């Protein structure tokens, strides 16, 4: 029989909270960093200059063709050889996730940028805005709005994927539940609770996405 009675505030604060906090941090950093670098990669690919396009395309296609768990493992295992000392599972995970997500966000941003009609760029340029001003004031704000649902959906996937850091032993949400379960001899219950927590968070977030979409809609535009 399932016995969930072991699960109380004490367990949450001793095992789960720390893992939850790391998962949230990892998601937030990888999202912000991933969107930032992803946008740069997208701009490189759309720059019309071969020497910028090629490295960006190679990076994005390369990253998207390798399973995330392998990138996590390889980065963690290889970095001590590269810099002579280990950097720890948590930091390693943060760097890996940011670099990996940048590839996915860049494809989303690329589609977003391309969805803005050429006339908008012309209008910005005709007013005397330079490339960065046109991007920053005209193209990207509209692209972000168009892409917001997809960007946030990618972030929900990212939150789920953070559980893959088990491969390098980082202490995340899943690991928190796992430790609690092991300590109390209740692994099945702990994994079940973990699943419920992931479900509630991800389902809640997708609801937030829907609401946000309605809030951010530009007046007069469908």
């Amino acid at each position, binding site marked *: 029989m399932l016995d969930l009675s072991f699960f109380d505030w004490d367990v949450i604060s001793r095992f789960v909270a720390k893992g939850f906090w790391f998962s949230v941090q990892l998601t937030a950093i990888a999202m912000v960093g991933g969107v930032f670098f992803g946008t740069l990669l997208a701009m490189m690919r759309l720059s019309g200059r071969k020497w910028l396009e090629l490295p960006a395309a190679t990076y994005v296609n390369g990253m998207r063709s390798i399973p995330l768990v392998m990138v996590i493992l390889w980065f963690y295992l290889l970095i001590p050889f590269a810099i002579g000392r280990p950097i720890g599972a948590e930091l390693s995970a943060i760097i890996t996730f940011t670099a990996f997500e940048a590839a996915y966000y860049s494809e989303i941003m690329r589609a977003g940028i391309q969805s803005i009609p050429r006339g908008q760029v012309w209008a910005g340029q*005709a*007013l005397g805005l330079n490339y960065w*001003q046109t991007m920053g004031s005209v193209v990207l704000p509209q692209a972000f709005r168009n892409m917001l649902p997809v960007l946030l959906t990618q972030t929900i996937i990212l939150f789920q994927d953070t559980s893959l850091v088990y491969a390098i032993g980082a202490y995340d949400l899943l690991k928190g539940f796992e430790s609690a379960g092991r300590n109390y001899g209740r692994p099945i219950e702990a994994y079940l609770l973990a699943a419920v927590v992931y479900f509630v968070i991800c389902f809640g977030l997708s609801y937030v996405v829907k609401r946000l979409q309605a809030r951010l809609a530009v007046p007069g535009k469908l």
Partner: protein
Amino acid sequence: MAMIEMKGVSKWYGSFQVLADCTTSVDKGEVVVVCGPSGSGKSTLIKCVNALEPFQKGDVIVDGISVGDPKTDLPKLRSRVGMVFQHFELFPHMSVSDNLALAQVKVLGRSKDEATARGMKYLERVGLTAHAQKYPGQLSGGQQQRVAIARALSMDPIAMLFDEPTSALDPEMINEVLDVMVQLAEEGMTMMVVTHEMGFARKVAHRVIFMDRGEIVEDAKKDDFFGKPRSERAVQFLSKILHH
């Protein structure tokens, strides 16, 4: 004195030539209408004036500055030439007021308050002060185009380019935009206007340029163009758009 001078401008898309050796000029205070069948290169030609379309041969001189010179500060040159597009191209994510202020602040370095005040002045000119806080999507096409004209004017341009400003409008809205343009012309603004509105051309144009297949076929004083067009192609074009 020529405000805009085009000297042998040629442009190719791959092996297809869209502009062939186009030479003309627009004097200060002059209104020049560019017409011709669709695909004749009118829009491409007018976009060469502020280098929105690059060209491979020839040059355009705007107020003494070469557009083709790679050393030219293009954003600066463009900021001095106003442009109005067929599809308005207001920024849909900004209020009308912010549409007017954006480039004044970012390019001319005006304060937000000053830019907004100036924007309001031009918004009043086009009769739309009541709509300052609305978004472009909440306005009709004619209103949007008038905002676009106000946006260009608020940069204090030395010349205005109009690329088919009424082609995307419902018929009942064409006149409200043309009225603003006529008023501008009568105030002595230097204007280059791609349009099929021959009524506008008759009323305020000084010269008419007729283009076909990337060439400037006729470049004549308004009365000469409408009275006795020299080329067969211009005659055909005029008979098509004037008689129906």
